[in-house]
């Protein structure tokens, strides 16, 4: 499978080139994608933990989310 390409625009000549990425550049892209996936997973886990904590507090109060929303309306 050929490597992906990037666009390079020379601002002096206005020439636009389509350049094939080197293997090192492809590896960098993959690394960035992996970092982003890890970060996304961490954010989702933190969001889920916060929601679980919220539900725990509501349960102790004997209220549902809808009842709290109605009380605050």
């Amino acid at each position: 499978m050929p490597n992906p390409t990037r666009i390079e625009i020379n601002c002096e000549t206005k020439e636009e080139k389509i350049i094939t990425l080197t293997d090192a550049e492809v590896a960098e892209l993959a690394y960035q994608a992996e970092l982003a996936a890890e970060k996304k997973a961490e954010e989702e886990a933190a969001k889920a933990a916060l929601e679980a904590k919220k539900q725990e507090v509501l349960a102790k109060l004997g209220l549902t989310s809808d009842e709290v929303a109605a009380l605050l309306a």
Partner: protein
Amino acid sequence: MANTFELIASSTVGAGGAASIDFTSIPNTFTDLCLKLSVRDNNGFQGDDLGIRFNSSSSGYSARTLYGSGSAAASATNPNGTSQGFIGPASAGANSGANVFGNSEVYIPNYAGSTNKSYSSDALTEYNGTLVYMGFVAGLWSNTAAITSITIIPLGGGTSFSQYSTAYLYGVKNA
């Protein structure tokens, strides 16, 4: 557009996509630079981050950002590390719905000077009324070299900008 804004160069991504967009040989005849982006990428998320590099450097970057989704707001420091500058949630991912692109503007004052290079950006991705991510960034490249090239890269896990994504680089002169 004011008379002091001059289009230096522009690019529209073709059917094959692009892993990055590079503006090279930027003339030093302007005072500031203004980069306007309309971008979509191949990542499976919705609001994806964009990164920026100057002179192909992969070090010396820092950023403070204020961002939100319309229902919550937060702030962060160096949200994507220090090996590239951070533009913000400026790229609509593949799950954004058809024909949705993120918008952003990056302003780089005194790009040809001999001091460290600061920049600011505002970015958003809006999915036809169902969701929005937006952010403001105060960025810094701790390098005194004049900026002669700018590279835009996807950060959100995407590996390619989609067809019809555009990048316009303007030079701004003091009146």
